[in-house]
């Protein structure tokens, strides 16, 4: 995963971020933090499968978000379906 794609994720999912040694990002919904991820400020490709794992996304779902066919509301629905966001 490229840094550009990571930032697309951040923007599409409206992740909250904090920049320190790394760029930390987390997903909040109705005041609760459900998932988190991060990237370093260094060089190199990011390990996509591990970022996906942190965000609880399948390859297809991640591609949808990066490819602008899925948005934050879809992500909430995905997390509900997977039991991460409980009713």
């Amino acid at each position, binding site marked *: 995963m490229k840094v550009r794609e990571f930032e697309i994720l951040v923007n599409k999912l409206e992740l909250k971020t904090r920049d*320190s*040694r*790394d760029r*930390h990002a*987390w997903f*909040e919904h109705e*005041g*609760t*933090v*459900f*998932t*988190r991820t*991060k990237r*370093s400020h*260094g*060089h*190199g*490709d*990011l*390990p996509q499968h*591990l970022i996906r*794992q*942190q965000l*609880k996304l399948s390859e297809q779902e991640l591609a949808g978000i990066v490819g602008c066919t899925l948005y934050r509301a879809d992500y909430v629905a995905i997390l509900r379906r997977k039991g*991460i*966001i*409980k009713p």
Partner: protein
Amino acid sequence: MTTTIDDIQVSPAGQQFPRPIQEGQQHVYLHAGPFLFELQAVSHTAAANLEIQGAPASLLLGNVSDPRLRVRVPIPVRIVREGNTFVASFDAVDEFGYGQNRSEALEDLAKSIAALYFSLAAQNERLGEDLKSVRSRLDQYLERRLSR
């Protein structure tokens, strides 16, 4: 006979550096901080090269590079190479580090684990169940050092 090695520098597997070898035993284990590497001497000449082979794909991390934290239970780490990037992961909490070599990846992971610990602690009251589980698992491996 024991191979004499002075001031070994840790390097990724496959990199060579000159080091005088006197004679003898081919396998030397270098414990450098939290890392354990196996070195194999490929020559017995006075100015032979050492080639690092068999760098572990998994190891135990005993330090997260943060003076505020102590590792209670060694952290199992998996290291894989993905293209030009090395990725070290602590699968139990879905945390990872990456870099241009194993050392960078491990250092990145160690710092990421520490950052995750404090981040989850700071947000404790607002964590969903999954992240609460992550925090609980982290607590099994880490604890805060008592301030003196």
